[in-house]
């Protein structure tokens, strides 16, 4: 175990914690242990099995990507002094990044029930445990925020001067507090009213909804501001009080532009007050949060057996062998029930549903639907192919990955049946519903003339699924790896696989340049599909034993 810089820095605030009744020494010990564990996210069994040993905090190593994302903020900082728009957009994005990171990466920390059995049974008071939990998350959120705002901060310093940076910094601290504490309060609220498995489901769906909602909200925010019109004057409406990014734009107007309209003052007050009130509420409610956390451990309700006829039909008609059918059903129910899988995948699916419309409506503000129905805008449906790599990649992960010994212990004749059954289930359960929904709406907008194009998109999707599976998952068995690996191993490979969609779009446009070209393209796709399927799912033998899990 080593010393952590973050803890050294934290000790500067020792006085504050002590005054709040927190046992600082104990909290520091808990944090040191937590940080040590975070560095070792890779379980030892993996490290020992020949794969190269990965030490160090994988999360911190992935921070550079936030630095890259942050470049998008720079134009908004450079443009001018219309702070209520520019800074609101900047803080909108910061809130977005922090919120998504909080929900997807740190909900686990917040909802960790192990702490209860291990720490709360020791003579440590609840306040200290609660503080350790929130500070643990804060440390990481500070890293995320730091990575995302360092460059913009410097740009702001040079462009708008020192006062701007000071306000910026203070607001940043407030936003981190706001995000962490509001998320906790939200969970607290949910935990109050439900129990056991139901509760886990609800949290799961809230997480999914939130991450979709944040993306959608952010897109809408950007578009409603009409980036081109940055000069236009701001007009106040009462519902602006509900948009936190505006609160954080207002102080700049007040302090730098000397604009002391009542609503700007009110926004500024909200920006400061809400995080503080939230922290106060959190401190008050934390004991009941911990109490309700207990519910996560137990489930007393009995559930009825349910048969999904759709899954049965899919298994019956789409799978050739009994073995494949077994894995089709297995994968279908895993996709439906595995919460962590849903958490990682459903937001992406939501975006596939949302983005095509977003782009269509952004580009069609002037002419309306009539105008675009003759155009090429239906190609935005390719957004539902863009998501294929990130979803297919997730198929090999599971929270219950240890159960995959079953694949090896059971007398499975053809290993390819595991893969093909899973992939078919993915296509039918996750891809097709989105594709069908989008197609129906698109046919309504663009008329039935786009039917051949839709067929090409579908086939392209199938082919891309196949390619992705081969490259990203290789011979890894489905649902056989811990989610801890999901973050680190994606990266560049996923980026490239996502770009394949671009190749399909290009080919599609090329085909459309010729008369009946689309039919040739469909034929080519069909042939490629046939060959590809046979190559990827060749009749290989049983599960290789030496394979490392």
């Amino acid at each position, binding site marked *: *175990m080593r010393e952590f810089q973050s803890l050294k820095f934290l000790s500067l605030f020792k006085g504050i914690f002590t005054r709040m009744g927190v046992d600082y020494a*104990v909290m520091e*010990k*808990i944090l040191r*242990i937590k940080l*040590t*564990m975070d560095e*070792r*996210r890779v*379980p*030892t*069994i993996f490290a*020992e099995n020949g794969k190269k040993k990965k030490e160090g905090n994988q999360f911190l190593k992935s921070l550079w990507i936030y630095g890259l994302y942050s470049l998008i903020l720079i134009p908004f900082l450079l443009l001018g002094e219309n702070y209520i728009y520019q800074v609101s957009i900047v803080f909108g994005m910061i809130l977005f990044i922090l919120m998504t990171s909080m929900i997807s990466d740190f909900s686990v920390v917040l909802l960790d029930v*192990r702490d*209860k*059995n*291990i*720490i*709360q*049974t*020791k*003579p*440590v*008071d*609840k306040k200290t445990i609660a503080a350790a939990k929130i500070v643990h998350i804060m440390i990481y959120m500070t890293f995320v925020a730091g990575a995302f705002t360092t460059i913009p901060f410097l740009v702001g310093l040079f462009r708008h001067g020192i006062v701007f940076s000071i306000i910026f910094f203070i607001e940043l601290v407030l936003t981190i507090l706001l995000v962490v504490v509001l998320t906790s309060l939200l969970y607290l609220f949910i935990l109050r009213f439900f*129990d056991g498995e139901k509760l886990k489901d609800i949290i799961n769906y809230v997480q999914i909804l939130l991450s979709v909602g944040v993306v959608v909200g952010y897109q809408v925010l950007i578009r409603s501001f009409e980036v081109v019109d940055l000069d236009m004057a701001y007009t106040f409406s009462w519902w602006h009080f509900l948009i936190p990014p505006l609160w954080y734009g207002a102080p700049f107007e007040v302090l730098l532009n000397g604009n002391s309209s009542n609503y700007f003052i009110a926004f500024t007050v909200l920006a400061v007050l809400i995080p503080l009130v939230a922290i106060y509420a959190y401190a008050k409610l934390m*004991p009941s949060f911990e*109490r309700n956390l*207990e519910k996560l451990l*137990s489930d*007393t309700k009995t559930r009825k057996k349910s048969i999904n006829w759709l899954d049965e039909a899919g298994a019956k008609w789409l799978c050739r062998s009994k073995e494949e059918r077994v894995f089709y059903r297995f994968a279908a129910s895993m996709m439906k029930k595995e919460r962590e899988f849903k958490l990682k995948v459903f937001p992406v699916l939501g975006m596939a549903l949302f983005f095509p419309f977003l782009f269509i409506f952004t580009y069609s503000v002037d002419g309306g639907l009539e105008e675009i129905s003759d155009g090429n805008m239906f190609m935005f449906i390719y957004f539902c192919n863009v998501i294929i790599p990130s979803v297919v990649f997730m198929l090999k992960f599971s929270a219950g990955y240890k159960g995959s010994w079953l694949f090896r212990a059971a007398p499975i004749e053809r290993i390819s049946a595991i893969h093909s059954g899973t992939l078919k289930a993915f296509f039918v359960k996750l891809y097709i519903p989105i594709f069908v929904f989008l197609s129906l709406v698109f046919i309504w907008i663009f008329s039935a003339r786009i039917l051949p194009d839709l067929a090409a998109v579908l086939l392209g999707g199938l082919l891309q699924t196949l390619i992705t599976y081969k490259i990203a998952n290789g011979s890894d068995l489905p649902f056989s790896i811990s989610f801890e690996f999901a973050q680190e191993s994606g990266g560049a490979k996923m980026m490239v696989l996502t770009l394949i969609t671009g190749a399909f779009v290009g080919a599609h446009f090329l085909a459309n340049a010729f008369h009946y070209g689309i039919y040739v393209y469909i034929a080519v796709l069909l042939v490629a599909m046939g060959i590809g399927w046979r190559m990827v799912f060749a009749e290989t033998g049983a599960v290789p034993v030496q394979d490392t899990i």
Partner: protein
Amino acid sequence: MTRENDKVLSIQNLTMNYGGKQVLNGINLEVASGEIIGYIGPNGAGKSTTVKIMLGLIDDYQGKVMIFGQDIASGDPSYKKKIGYVPENAEAYDNLTAIEYLVFTGELYGMDRDAAQEKAERLLAQFELQEVGHSRLSSFSKGMKQKVLITASLLHDPDLLFWDEPLSGLDANSMMVIQEILAQLAAQGKTIFYSSHIMDLVEKISNRIVLLVKGEVVADSTFEELKEMSEEGSLSGIFNQLTGFTEHRNKAKDFVSIVQGDEEYA
């Protein structure tokens, strides 16, 4: 049996309502120092709930729980200083090494870091685990991990022990060692609150047996007294009788015939 001054634990009229269901139904229990209590009962009887209440993990109970003369509802966690706990599912921070985990728990109990480290190493050596002291718990077998957790519960020399299924995964030799440790600790005046499903063991180790059924104490006496009360000769027999379970033979017969029988699944 219980004198007022060496009363370690006292539970008065403890009830607990969980989601509209009565989990504990007025439990009364007085425990003196030096007792080894076998706390037994069928699944869902409320054993773990009682232990969790005493450890302060659950605080919305009704009734009064006093430990070392302190009402635990006061919110002051200091009474836990002299308690050692082995959780039932071998829960631990698996990414830590055995020594790190032990030192951490020791520190939480207020021990000095170096003292905790030294003691941890010496105790692990007694279990012949000194070689793996710096390996992560995630690489440990169930029995090894259980030994670490048992060590963790004893590191700070507590006066009261709560052990929930402490022997799961241990081999016969280790079980004998633990059994002997328990006896010697009790002789030193430590109190041990012990729950297990292995009746033979409870019969051997405990000097007092508390049987819980549906949130109520249905028996509370020594094994010998229990034997006199019932016609069964073994604790598992008494257990079956008191929990009203008599059809194990028929159940087993049906089960095996299903395993062998049905042609439609063959």
